[in-house]
């Protein structure tokens, strides 16, 4: 699916603006990234990718930032680096955040696929394979479960049945 490319230091105030935080995720997602890409919330399609430079998601701890991207159907985030708090939040919601030092090779609109077996982003438009830093094992299990909440649900269920 296609990629939406953003610059360095995209902050949580543009991903999930404060004035919409009192509403549910539907409304917040409707304004996701609109301050820097007005067509993004309207035209992003499930399975698309968000690609960025350094420090994606800097600023607030608001989990609605990765939640809005997930709500819009974004399949994964690919960036040179992520703000630490945002990175934890994204994985906690089961949204893969992939650290790829060559993320800037990807052009806006390129079609991508992610190979989790080889830890590579495959840019189908340019034909390039870009390695990403593997997500640590203890977190990948949580991402596969769909995030921390379903992961905890599974753990608590195991505890009750055993």
């Amino acid at each position, binding site marked *: 699916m296609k990629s939406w490319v953003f610059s360095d*230091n995209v*902050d949580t*105030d*543009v991903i999930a*603006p*404060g*004035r919409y*935080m*009192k*509403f549910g995720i539907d409304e917040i997602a409707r304004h996701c990234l609109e*301050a*820097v890409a007005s067509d993004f919330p309207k035209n992003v399609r499930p399975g698309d990718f968000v690609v960025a430079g*350094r*420090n994606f998601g*800097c*600023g*607030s*701890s*608001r*989990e609605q930032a990765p939640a809005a991207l997930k709500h819009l159907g974004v399949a994964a985030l690919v960036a040179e*680096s992520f*703000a*630490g*708090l945002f*990175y*934890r*939040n994204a994985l*906690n*919601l089961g949204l893969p955040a992939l650290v790829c030092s060559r993320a800037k090779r990807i052009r806006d609109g390129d079609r991508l696929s992610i190979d989790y077996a080889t830890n590579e982003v495959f840019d189908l438009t340019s034909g390039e394979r870009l390695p990403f830093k593997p997500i*640590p094992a*203890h977190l990948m299990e949580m991402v596969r479960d769909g*995030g*921390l*909440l379903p992961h*905890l*649900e599974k753990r*608590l269920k195991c505890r009750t049945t055993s």
Partner: protein
Amino acid sequence: MPATLAEKLVARAAGRSSVTPGEIVTCKVDLAMMHDSGGPRRVKPMLERLGAKVWDPSKVVVITDHYLPAYDDESRKIIRIARDWVREAGIENFYDAQGICHVVLPERGHLRPGMFVVGGDSHSPTGGAFAAYVFGVGATEMLGVLVTGEIWLEVPHTIVMEFDGALEPGVSAKDMMLFLIGRFGLDGGQYEAVEYRGAAIRRLPMQERMTLCNMTAELGGQTGLVASDGVTRDFLKADVETWQSDPQAPVLEHHRFDASELAPQVAAPHSPANAGPVDQFRDVQPTLAYIGACTGAKLEDLRMASRILRGRKSKMRLLVAPASVRDQETAEAEGTLKAFVDAGAELLPNACGICAGYGEHLLPENMVAISSTARNFKGRMGAASSQVYLASPYTVAATAVAGRVCDPREFLR
């Protein structure tokens, strides 16, 4: 093995004699702090879904500060959920409309050197000023802590920011932070522990140290830290342990600066990293001056601004939102607040307010403002076309009385 302050704090919480940067450990949480926005309204439905209870209600603190005063149906509902939930969950440490969480938490004696604390807000590192390991988490991660009492952590490296000498009158911790963020960028902290050291840091009062650790969020650190000393003890009015780095402990980076050479700093829209000496901004003419938030309206911040405002009038709209009820009461009793009122300031509630994009005073289209807060990201404080300049309480006050961006040292000579 010599260890850094961060390593000692994490090792204690992980139940280990020592830890190595880069390894992943599980830490026991001594305290979990939440506010109304990221707290009860988000974690309550998840706890219900899991059928789980809070691991230890005595280790949870809930503080309402974001949606206060409630101004519409949504905000009233969010505040009501917080009030109801603390009762249901048996949480006694509940501070309702008492001020901003990062200021109220230490003010009410919940932080002690050596603790390991998570907060449901990105400015949680503020508490690191008390030589405690305090960092921000999102709502789902907070849920994990509430259920298990534990959290995983990659043991951080330490980045040392050492300031020798002493700040000139009119220059403050806020200027140190804008300078560092301008120099190292929004990810200069690399999500590691940033420790502030040196003679100039030891001279800072507690709430100025809190400003350093607070804005470690904008520097991109996981937490900011200052070793505990006599200043910590005096503020907490308690005989607390000394927690500090061993001098020989290896660190990732060690930067040294002379505090006496630092000029007041201003950060241009739309990033705290657009910082430079105040002289570069003399042509900017804001129409609003804002002194507010956990970063910029604690008692010490109010005192700094009042030194400029006393006996002068503001030439622009001047808003002040003291960071806590208690700080406001002290400011009132000692005459600090009177300087604001006499200068023509409007007093706003003790809450996050405009800084976080909440409430009724959001910046209108194209407004140019100067603010003592932490972030000037596009649209954060109101319309996307508004322009926010960040500065210290001194510089915001000097700008208000001069009618243009102004070096506060001109008023203090």
